[in-house]
């Protein structure tokens, strides 16, 4: 059964940041340039083709955008300036929107104004909430200990509730991702045993960004790894060692050393990325979607306020520390609530899952091929 071509898909993807896809004349240069493009997954050309023809069903079940790390070589070598790397990037945004069952993601990507509005709203609510909560708890002049404006233990409860909600939302989206890319495809039968056998791939890729390191260019990987590990460190420190971080004024070097390193890592990499996007000095920084800016600026603000708040606290300026703490939370909450399930942050889940699912598909296809090979050869067809 033939699939109906849809000329409007490109228009839709353009809102997600795709540009110049129409210029592609399918020479195949990009696919051959990409070190990840192989027998089972040939990309980015094929994905570009689905997009050009508007085959949204094919595109929705496509894992290939998650296999691309946007080193930018394909775009640089493209003879038509069709920006395959950026197209893959925009497809990741589009896929994120498809996986998200609430529709919020699509709204944010298509309309940065809506995202900004949502961020402002959440930030204001957070600010208001924490101020009211703080006033009910103690004095603005006390940072920690008895009478603290925002007692760490209580804030921590809030942290865990938020984390639970976010994991739940993201979890549902991940299941949807599985359904679109593996579950609903009748051509691929993945035996349950395989799921278990390959499951370690998820933490492995999450932690090491192993695949990213296989790109010909190493610097983007290094920057990304530092950012990711810094963030992860900070997350672990906050989720599990918050009391040791927050209590002062003494410095607890066992956690603070890690915390400082992570803060520096975050600060350095976000600055690096912001500068790169501003100057467009690397191929993957050449085109920036509004959501890229929003995310980076949020992260930068959060890092900066986090550091400031810490310095103020250790410096004994507790009132100022509390004010900045609220500002910090006004960045942290919208960043986590909106970015993690609905926007750029979600890729920390989709990417490793992409690796995992693609391996499953690959193994299943391979098994099928071997299976068919043991069967008698069909009569050779002449071309």
């Amino acid at each position, binding site marked *: 059964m033939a699939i109906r071509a849809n000329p409007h898909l490109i228009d839709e993807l353009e809102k997600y940041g795709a540009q110049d896809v129409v210029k592609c*004349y*399918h*020479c*195949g*240069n990009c*696919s*051959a*340039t990409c070190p990840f*493009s*192989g*027998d089972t997954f*040939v990309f980015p*050309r*094929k994905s570009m083709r689905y997009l050009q023809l508007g085959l949204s069903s094919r595109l929705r079940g496509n894992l290939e955008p998650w296999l691309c790390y946007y080193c930018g070589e394909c775009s640089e*070598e493209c*003879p*038509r*300036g069709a920006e395959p790397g950026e197209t893959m990037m925009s497809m990741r945004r589009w896929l994120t929107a498809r996986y998200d069952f609430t529709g919020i993601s699509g709204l944010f990507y298509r309309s940065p104004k809506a995202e900004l509005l949502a961020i402002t709203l959440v930030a204001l609510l957070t600010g208001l909430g924490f101020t009211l909560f703080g006033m009910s708890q103690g004095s603005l002049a006390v940072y920690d200990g008895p009478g603290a404006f925002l007692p760490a233990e209580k804030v921590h409860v809030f942290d865990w509730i938020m984390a639970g909600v976010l994991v739940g939302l993201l979890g549902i989206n991940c299941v949807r991702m599985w359904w679109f890319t593996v579950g609903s495809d009748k051509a691929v039968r993945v035996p349950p045993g395989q799921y278990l056998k390959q499951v370690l791939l998820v933490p492995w890729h999450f932690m090491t960004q192993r695949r990213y390191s296989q790109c010909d260019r190493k610097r983007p990987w290094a920057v990304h790894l530092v950012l990711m590990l810094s963030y992860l460190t900070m997350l672990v420190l906050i989720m599990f060692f918050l009391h040791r971080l927050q209590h002062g004024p003494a410095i607890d070097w066992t956690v603070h050393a890690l915390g400082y390193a992570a803060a520096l890592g975050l600060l350095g990499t976000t600055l690096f990325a912001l500068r790169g996007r501003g100057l467009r000095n690397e191929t993957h920084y050449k085109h920036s979607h509004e959501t890229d800016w929003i995310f980076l600026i949020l992260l930068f603000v959060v890092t900066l306020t986090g550091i400031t708040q810490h310095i103020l606290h250790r410096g004994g300026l507790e009132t100022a520390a509390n004010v900045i703490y609220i500002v910090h939370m006004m960045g942290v909450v919208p960043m986590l609530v909106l970015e993690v399930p609905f926007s750029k942050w979600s890729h920390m889940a989709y990417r490793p899952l992409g690796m995992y699912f693609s391996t499953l598909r690959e193994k299943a296809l391979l098994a099928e091929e071997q299976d068919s090979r043991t069967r008698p050869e069909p009569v050779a067809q002449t071309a």
Partner: protein
Amino acid sequence: MPSFASPKKIGVFFTHANTGRLDGLDLEKVMTFALELPEVTVVEDLGPIRRPDPHKLAEWIKDLGLTDVVIAGDTPGYHKPVFTRAMALAGGEADAVRLASFGEAGAATDQVESTAKAAVACAVHDVPFGLAVTPVRVPVHPDTLVIGAGVAGIETALRIADAGHHVHLVERAATIGGHMAMFDKTFPTLDCAACILTPKMVAVGQHENIDILNCSEVQAVGGSPGEYKVRVLRRARRVDPEACVACHACRDVCPTRVPSEFDEGIVERKAIYMAFPQAIPNAYVIDGDNCLWVKSEGEKCGACVKKCPKDAIHLDEEPRSVELTVGNIVVATGFDTFDATLIERYGYGRLPNVLTALEFERLTNASGPTGGRIVTRTVRRKRKTKQEEWIFDTDAPAPRSVAIIHCVGSRDQNHNAYCSRVCCMYSLKFAHLVKEKLPDAECYQFYIDMRAFGKGYEEFFERIKDEGVFVVRGRTAQIQRGDDGMVIRGEDIVHDRIREFPVDMVLLAVGLEPAKGTRHLAKVLDIQPGCDGWFTELNYNTDPTATNRGGIHVAGVCQGPKDIPDTVAQASAVAARVLGSIISGSIRVDRDTVSPAEAAAQASAIASANAQEASWPSEPTPT
């Protein structure tokens, strides 16, 4: 159709397409000029619009009561369909939409404004631009200068000389023949290039009406159409071609070896050399940059002089200039090939068995270093210096697999965005030669679009496939050193997979670029090189050989990539122009100086004359 019955209301709309042709044009002045033309009621600058709405335009046309519309700009044709439709929607005459193209006349920069005005005036009066510009005719000198003696220059020179007129044939190299002399076979008939070209070269060499100025370059051009004064620099040949009998005695004693340009560097020649045995003039020449005697200013060597039995060698010869007076100048400077080292991932220059097209032409040529055997390059230690060098040895192993990569440097905005037009076919020819000489070798073509458009080309493509050549749709991304030879990687699009396999030899179908020095020559001749560096013809459709200067013509590849049949046809076409001017005794100086007022008057006169007897096509009857 012009008519006196009802008064016309003409709207002139200006558009921009950012082609660069309007640079330096003061549009205001053209618009003011347009508004003063009779019957013009509206002049609008639409700006760089992308897609006007036909319904809005229709309303506009209706409101203004326009009967005729003129679209003016650098490429006004892009908006003709929408204006035509708008006209039809408004109930007007669809045929009353006309174009005034500023690009058409290929005018020099200082002429842009007057050409634009004239074009608008012509369109307003519904008179083709070419008719309104009265050609000024001046007497013409019967001699002709042909610059470049490749197949195009040779063909033009022969056509003119055979008709009994004198031709000066200027060639930068020591021999005539150009690139075609280097080829082995020609597509699609596979007749040997030498068999076609050498008789023509011999005919040129023997022709009483042609004088060959080899080792020469045009330095300056003065005078005016009809009588150009040309100064030609004749570099020192240092061997008298009249006296030399090509006995090779000098070559045998010459101590200096350098890579042979004619053989694309795959073999060496001496400092005193003949590019190839059939060279015309059939005489030796000394390469002053490498000759020991010349370099040492007479201190060293000089062995050849002693050996020469005819006293033909004059090592102290100095370059000199000659002055020529000619009526017509034909530019046939041809092309150079794309520098494949610019695409690093193909490894040209690093990997010894990645060859360019011309290198392969020489390798497979019967008079090449291996007598036409296709072998891989192997390493050898130089006897004296013990340095390693890569050479083609007749006894070296033949490649077991050969990959041919199309569009190297062509159709690529990082290099040359245009298509070089000949590479597909010569690549197919290479595949055939590989299969013919090495039936067991595997041969792969990596292509994007197979452009087999000429007579017998498509059939040739089919034949190549029947011969067992694998054609892979997809561009190769890279060639890397492998364990045993090289590994090539490319996408096989139709079969949806990445192909990565070892090959012994890779042929790069390098594209064509304007010959080195083309821009300089354009300046000397005061004619226009286009955006890609190829010379711009006066009119793409109707004047493919004329330039913006009267009496200066372009022929062959220097106007744009072409295969041999098209080059020969175009070269003959130039001869028509030259012979026509000589026979009629005068030459058109047209479009060098266009007076808008005159053009407008002329157009108006033609228009009213034509009002009685309509003579150009309106709605045709299909046959």
